[in-house]
């Protein structure tokens, strides 16, 4: 007997949810600003009028006048981009609020120019059931300054054995599924998740690592790990799993998203899979784009992350992957840890760096200013991440909800000089002088961040 075809109506599909606390819709006129939106093709001086949280008008600079009740923002010498989005952040709620919570995490995001985020499920308890996910949506409705979505676990307890109730979670508005922080080690479980995806939808976002190869490693395996006597994490611990999961996704016709690529071989594996028609996208982090294992020579625990900072050749391959289009977006993997957790010997320290407040300036300073990447490409990659999950693609166009970031590209600042919005200060870029400062962030139609120096005046 052949089983009956499952009918779509048996699954109640609802929209993926992005939730934030209620905020007053913005009324702003940004005048004389250089608008750059790679998707709508805008690249020049304009006036942009936001009314009731929507982009109401875009005109040639100097042509728009401000209606009553609208704040005036001087955009002269500044750039206006679509708000950045991040499909990969750790908001540490529930259970690890001493590292970060929804309020501090989204405040850090807003300060970095982000208008939407997706939180990872490796919390305590992990996000693997409807009650936990529901409670998070409720908390976000109270505390989140910018809209946040959540990716529950692929496997129950993040243990890698049994699938979570993915259909129910999806119906509640899950942004996709991931066991981030850990790989799905068992290929059979990975295959079942890909099969089950036909029922519930939702991208599977994958932390790729073969623990048999990474073992107790704490940094990239290479000459420096040999010198420092620190156990290495070889590039192949990532790339073999990327290749495996691309093969499985191709076989099952599934849709996967590879998180935080770090190795040259992984970029090649994704490129090959894309060429075969596998439905795979991937992301790179600001730290893998701009740092190498040389930056770990001093064993600064703020630069210990998983996957680790790798060789110069790996870093160049990641940059080239972004340029060629193999890598689809920039995601921070914002991973806050309390100071006392990081003030331990390197091998004992937890993995991760914060990144939301520094992402744009880091990439701009290290890659756009020297000419390695164009500004337009960086803006595109920093605004693409949620679109890959079928979520938001912010655009500067009339009628769109206002998701905007105003940046002064010339402004220089030192990371950490005035503290952080995040509850944690484990920033790999601490003390670096960066160029490019976020002045104003509008998320889902409301002002989410305003730099102190920016003066708004009522019209």
């Amino acid at each position: 007997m052949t089983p009956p075809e499952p009918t779509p109506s048996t699954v109640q599909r609802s929209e993926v949810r992005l939730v934030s606390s209620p905020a007053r819709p913005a009324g702003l006129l940004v005048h004389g600003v250089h608008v750059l939106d790679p998707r709508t093709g805008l690249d020049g001086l304009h006036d942009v009028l936001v009314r009731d949280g929507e982009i109401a008008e875009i005109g040639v600079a100097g042509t728009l006048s401000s209606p009553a009740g609208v704040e005036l923002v001087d955009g002269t010498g500044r750039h206006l981009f679509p708000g950045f989005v991040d499909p990969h952040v750790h908001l540490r709620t529930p259970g690890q609020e001493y590292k970060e919570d929804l309020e501090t995490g989204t405040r850090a995001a807003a300060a970095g120019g982000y208008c939407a985020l997706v939180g990872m499920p490796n919390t305590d308890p992990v996000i693997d059931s409807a009650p936990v996910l529901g409670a998070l949506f409720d908390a976000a409705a109270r505390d989140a300054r910018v809209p946040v979505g959540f990716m529950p676990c692929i496997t129950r307890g993040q243990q890698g054995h049994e699938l979570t109730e993915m259909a129910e979670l999806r119906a509640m508005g899950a942004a996709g599924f991931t066991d981030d922080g850990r790989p799905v080690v068992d290929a059979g479980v990975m295959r079942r998740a890909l099969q089950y995806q036909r029922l519930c939808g939702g991208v599977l976002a994958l932390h790729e690592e073969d623990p048999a190869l990474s073992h107790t490693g704490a940094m990239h395996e290479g000459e420096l790990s040999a010198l420092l006597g620190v156990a290495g994490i070889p590039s192949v611990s990532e790339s073999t799993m990327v290749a495996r999961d691309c093969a499985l996704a191709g076989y099952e016709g599934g849709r996967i998203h590879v998180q935080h690529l770090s190795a040259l071989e992984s970029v090649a594996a994704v490129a090959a899979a894309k060429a075969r028609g596998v439905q795979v996208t991937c992301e790179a982090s600001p730290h893998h784009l701009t740092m190498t294992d040389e930056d770990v020579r001093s064993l600064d625990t703020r630069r210990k992350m998983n996957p680790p900072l790798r060789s110069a050749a790996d870093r160049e391959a990641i940059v080239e992957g972004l340029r060629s289009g193999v890598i689809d977006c920039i995601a921070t993997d914002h991973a806050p840890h309390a100071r006392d957790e990081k003030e331990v010997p390197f091998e004992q320290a937890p993995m991760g760096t914060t990144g939301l407040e520094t992402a744009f300036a880091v990439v701009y300073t290290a890659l756009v200013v020297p000419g390695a990447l164009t500004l337009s490409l960086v803006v595109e990659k920093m605004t693409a991440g949620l679109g890959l999950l079928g979520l938001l693609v912010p655009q500067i166009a009339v009628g769109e909800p206002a998701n905007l970031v105003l940046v002064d590209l010339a402004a220089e600042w030192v990371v950490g000089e005035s503290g952080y919005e995040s509850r944690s200060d484990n920033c790999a870029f601490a003390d670096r002088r960066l160029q490019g400062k976020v002045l104003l962030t509008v998320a889902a139609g409301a002002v989410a961040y305003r730099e102190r120096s920016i003066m708004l005046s009522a019209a």
Partner: protein
Amino acid sequence: MKHLLSIEDLDREAIERILDRAAAFAEVSDRDIKKVPALRGRTVLNLFYEASTRTRSSFELAAKRLSADVVNFASSGSSVEKGESLKDTVLTLTAHSPDAIVIRSPYAGAAALVAGWTPASVINAGDGKHEHPTQALLDVHTLRQKLGSLDGRSIWIVGDVAHSRVARSNILAFQKMGAHVTVCGPPTLMPRGIEALGCTVRYDLDDLREADVVYALRMQNERMDQAFVPSLREYAAQYQINGRRLGPRQVLMHPGPVNRGVELSGEVVDSPQAVITMQVKAGVVVRMAVLFEVLAGAGGRTSRTAPRPTEPQLA
């Protein structure tokens, strides 16, 4: 010199300065009354997070022969077992105003971290698999006594290089002193990229005869559980230094404690080529020289005979 954290930080001149002083201190160890007042009134704190008999007692003897006061702090039976962090332990102990902290830790970079948390001089007595600088200094001292100079000598370091801080410090130290270093061991216990340190990598002992010095590393039993080598029997067959492999003019070294019948056969341990007890003896005088260097030597604190104030001073 304020701290001794790694051999990497030292140049040949600094190594020679410390070892020349060690040679001068050697005479003290042969006296009936084995004590000089060089560090009288100074406090040396031994902070050991790993079991250690010879290194800890060697540091203790060295400090006492220089008339320093010594406090031993072991992780077992202390606040560490109650969950105190390394930083809090160091801050607590620093409140007692030690002049030097000697630290052994299972983690790379621990000594350098401690140096950032205390005004005391810090001496690395082994940090994870990273470095063990005083071991390398005492090994160079032993070889200078035995051979005069290391210039142009061929030194083979044989065994588990991957898990050995002794290997890493000695590769650097022997090379700085003009020797050529070959590391040899099972490929599974050879860290990828080690040749970047300037040494030659070999996987068999076929050319061991070219060595002037054979330095065998301890084969730790726990490596067997992790299946890095198929069996101790196979390891011994491939890498054991025995009477058949060791030439009559070669010097044999080992950091101790020896696994007789594994990395060394019994007969070579007891042979005249073995300088293993010379190494232990060198340990005390070299550590005297290191303590003197960081507490009273050039670039460190100035030597004083008067009792020092209770507050620690930054150099």
